[in-house]
């Protein structure tokens, strides 16, 4: 939990919790229901005002209410996609890495093929014909998105499993007669957790982007309002060209905010996975500059060195 001490990670975690909380209670605290319309006669979106904090769209829906309501499905589905994808990547990656041989060759080839496929385009082809009854099922959509998202995690986990499989403690577990499934579950997988967490975060970022994009493009039309559907309506009404920025900007920022929160949390995970990449900040804060091949010299009388940058003294040409 030392990762939480980093301000970046703390900010990310707080932001993420806040967003999740909003997703849960958003529809309840919204001033109006998502489908509520203010004035059916006017055909022009209203700019933000005291009455409609984020303005309205062409159908006079209250966009603030839509923003609050739209997070629930969006976040639910991207987290589901992240979970399913992680599950898949653990199964594939750990199996490939631990079993090795032909199984590894086949699973790795499969993962590489999925990595080369443009996931979003395939999802478009698959999902376009689906009726709304199915596209509003979070479990289904989440798992279909996961199908295009597991390969990266599987690759990373496979590489790490391959390294762990050769670790001495795995051999030691074999020596005392542990069964293979126990070795995998209790010796290997716990050591994969940081990488798995990082893979999860990236998959959720991918999931939210993909799901929103699918809704924005009108490939899927979920029964309820999501950030993606708001963007879709804005897109088809030419909101960007017409300058209705309050229509598409808030949901876009909301998606961006989720991504940023997750990325900030990932900084903490990175620190656990590879402390080397972040640890050198300590010295600089005290004004010491570390350069490869030029160890700093801080000559002070005090037992504890004070903060003073080393000043390379010009060479006195040595006397014979």
């Amino acid at each position, binding site marked *: 939990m030392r990762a939480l001490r980093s301000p970046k990670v703390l900010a990310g975690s707080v932001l993420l919790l806040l967003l999740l909380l909003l997703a849960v209670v958003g529809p309840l605290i919204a001033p109006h229901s998502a489908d509520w319309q203010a004035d059916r006669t006017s055909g022009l979106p209203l700019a933000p005002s005291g009455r409609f904090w984020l303005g309205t769209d062409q159908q006079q829906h209250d966009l603030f209410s839509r923003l609050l309501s739209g997070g629930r499905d969006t976040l639910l589905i991207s987290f589901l996609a992240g979970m399913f994808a992680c599950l898949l990547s653990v199964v594939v990656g750990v199996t490939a890495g631990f079993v090795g041989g032909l199984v590894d060759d086949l699973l790795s080839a499969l993962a590489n093929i999925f990595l080369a496929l443009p996931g979003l385009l395939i999802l478009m082809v698959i999902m376009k014909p689906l009726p709304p009854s199915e596209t509003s099922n979070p479990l289904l959509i989440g798992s279909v998105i996961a199908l295009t998202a597991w390969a990266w995690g599987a690759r990373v986990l496979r590489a790490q499993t391959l390294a762990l499989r050769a670790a001495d403690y795995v051999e030691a577990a074999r020596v005392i007669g542990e069964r293979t499934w126990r070795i995998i579950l209790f010796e290997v997988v716990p050591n994969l957790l940081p990488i798995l967490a990082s893979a999860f975060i990236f998959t959720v970022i991918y999931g939210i982007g993909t799901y929103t994009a699918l809704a924005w493009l009108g490939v899927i039309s979920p029964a309820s309002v999501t950030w993606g559907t708001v963007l879709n309506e804005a897109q088809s009404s030419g909101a960007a060209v017409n300058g209705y920025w309050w229509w598409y900007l808030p949901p876009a920022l909301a998606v961006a905010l989720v991504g940023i929160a997750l990325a900030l949390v990932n900084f903490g995970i990175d620190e656990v996975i590879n402390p080397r990449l972040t640890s*050198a900040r*300590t*010295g600089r804060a*005290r004004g*010491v500059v*570390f*350069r*490869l*091949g*030029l*160890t*700093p*010299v*801080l*000559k*002070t009388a005090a037992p*504890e*060195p004070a*903060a003073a940058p080393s000043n*390379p*003294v*010009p*060479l*006195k*040409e*040595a*006397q*014979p």
Partner: protein
Amino acid sequence: MTGEPVLEVRDLCVDYGVGKGGVRAVTDATLTLRRGEVLGLAGESGSGKSTLAYAVTRLLRAPGVITGGEVRFHGPDGVLDLLEADAATLRRIRWDQISVVFQSAMHALNPVARIDAQLTDALRAHRAQLGPAERRERAVELLRLVGIGEERLRSYPHELSGGMRQRVMIAMALALEPRVVIMDEPTTALDVVTQREILDELMQLKDRLGFAIVFITHDLSLLIELADTIAIMYAGRIVELADAQRLFHSPRHPYTLGLLNSFPALHGERVRMEGIPGAPPALTALPAGCAFHPRCPFALERCAHDVPRLTEPAEPDGAPADRSAACWLHTGGEQVPEPLARVLGSTL
């Protein structure tokens, strides 16, 4: 110990980290390396032996910081304090005057560059007057020096065996005929036979070319065969400094004695040996006083709070000591235990 000094280290202190999080890794190290001499630095992991050597060359990595002392290098142009030198001066001296052989040649050779390129890049940087043909000639010559054929010039490191890679590394270190070669466990990763072959070659080259060697190792038994002078380090301090044979036959510091008793002999009666009880301390939690006192069988009361300085011990036969140890047992007034009071018959 006749040659004139080439490298003098005075009261060198090195820390890892700055400020509160910092720990002292080397404390008040004082050493002199003379021309053509092999100076051995022995100690266990964390004793500061490598830290000391890399700090001297200013090659110590972050978060290493030098916090005191001076390092006087006696070069062809006079004396120079390496701790005061700027980057350009250091660059000029490096490899030309002081070169380094790393522990693992596997990691010390650039995996994507050919052997000839790695042998000649220092020539290019330091001997601008040499043309490509001359550089290549020199590379061939260097490889021959360590018993490797010209056909290996265009090889990549991964195409060579471990022993060959270490030979290339040594050849590289000698490319500019430096005055000082620092060797950090240069043969630890190798098998005994290969180790012996390489060390034999190295000593012949040293006699021929006249460079001085700082040889860092944890293997004291090897060092005694190899070195002229040995410095024993413990918990960041030099605790004993003496001529190799005298160190072996008549150690003055209890740690040296314990270390010598940790190497089973190849000959003679098999006797049970005990090594040293306990384990080396972590730098973050050094005992007060003499850092060795919790493991020392001869510890005195004062050892727990006073840090002993490296001084000349009073020799039992009254002869000039010409050696030093950091131990309260030898500061006079104490009854020195028999194993630490032996006298080596011949003067060296």
